[in-house]
């Protein structure tokens, strides 16, 4: 009875073939989040090793590729934690003024008057080229705002978790995300409006 329960629904690729089959896939994701080739390949290695250890617990409910991608989420967080430890996040002067302002303390709103978009990004959601430019723009957002953005928005970590990893308080995380959004918007306007693919 329990035998059929344990039978995996999808075939398990043996670890010897993982590099061949999922190496590039995982590395691509790691690079998009970490931007650093060395950290990204460490991340892939850690993911594979953790995968071998946890293979008994693989339930076969989805492709092993996505299962490994799930494991890699934690490894990406670990790599960012490591990089933050080496390069501590200090609150910049400009951000400090914002955090201390009466308005921010009262409302939690970083700015009531963000500049309107120079173009409507929604129009291009179906355009593959737009997303390539979008990715290129995320790459250029400056740390630590980028790291906060990757953890919170792209890797779906909770606020508490991101604050712990980056050793910052929730208010500052909010300011960093605000900075990331602002930079991303400016970069998109520069890069997309000047591209020939639109």
């Amino acid at each position, binding site marked *: 009875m329990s035998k059929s329960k344990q039978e995996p629904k999808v075939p398990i690729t*043996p*670890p*010897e073939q*993982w*590099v*061949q089959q999922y*190496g*590039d*896939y995982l*590395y*691509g*994701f790691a*690079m*998009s989040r970490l931007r650093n*080739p060395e950290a990204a*390949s460490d991340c*892939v*290695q850690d993911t*594979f*090793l953790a995968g*071998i250890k946890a293979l008994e617990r693989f339930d076969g409910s989805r492709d092993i590729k996505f299962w490994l991608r799930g494991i890699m989420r934690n490894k990406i967080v670990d790599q960012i934690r490591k990089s933050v430890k080496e390069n501590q996040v200090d609150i910049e002067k400009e951000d400090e003024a914002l955090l201390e302002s009466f308005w921010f303390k*009262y*409302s*939690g*709103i*970083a*700015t*009531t*008057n*963000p500049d309107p978009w120079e173009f409507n*990004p929604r129009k291009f*959601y179906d355009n*593959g080229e737009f*997303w*390539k430019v*979008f*990715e290129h723009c995320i790459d250029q957002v400056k740390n630590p705002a980028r790291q906060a953005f990757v953890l919170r*928005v*792209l890797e*779906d970590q*909770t*606020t508490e978790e991101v604050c712990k990893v980056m050793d910052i308080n*929730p208010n500052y*995380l*909010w300011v960093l*995300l605000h900075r990331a*959004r602002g930079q*991303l*918007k400016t970069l998109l306007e520069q890069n997309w409006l000047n591209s020939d693919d639109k």
Partner: protein
Amino acid sequence: MLTCKQVSNALSKEDYEKLPPLRRFFLKLHVKLCVFCGKFNRQVMETQDMCRCYREREEELNEERPKLDEDKKEELRKLLIAQSQDKTG
């Protein structure tokens, strides 16, 4: 009705998609009515929306992302063989 602070807290600290429907309704209502929150929170929601679309397309984008170095692949392959033999043996 929610206060500005509650709205920005909800947008910054909680997962907007996972909020209970009633809370989400009041959140949207506030953002629509409030002069202060309106513009800012619309921007936040826009970015969230954009990132959701981006993530849906990532599998496709991943094919053009950088590839793992061949030497590193070989090194990893050997490591994985050794590790999985260790485990079974």
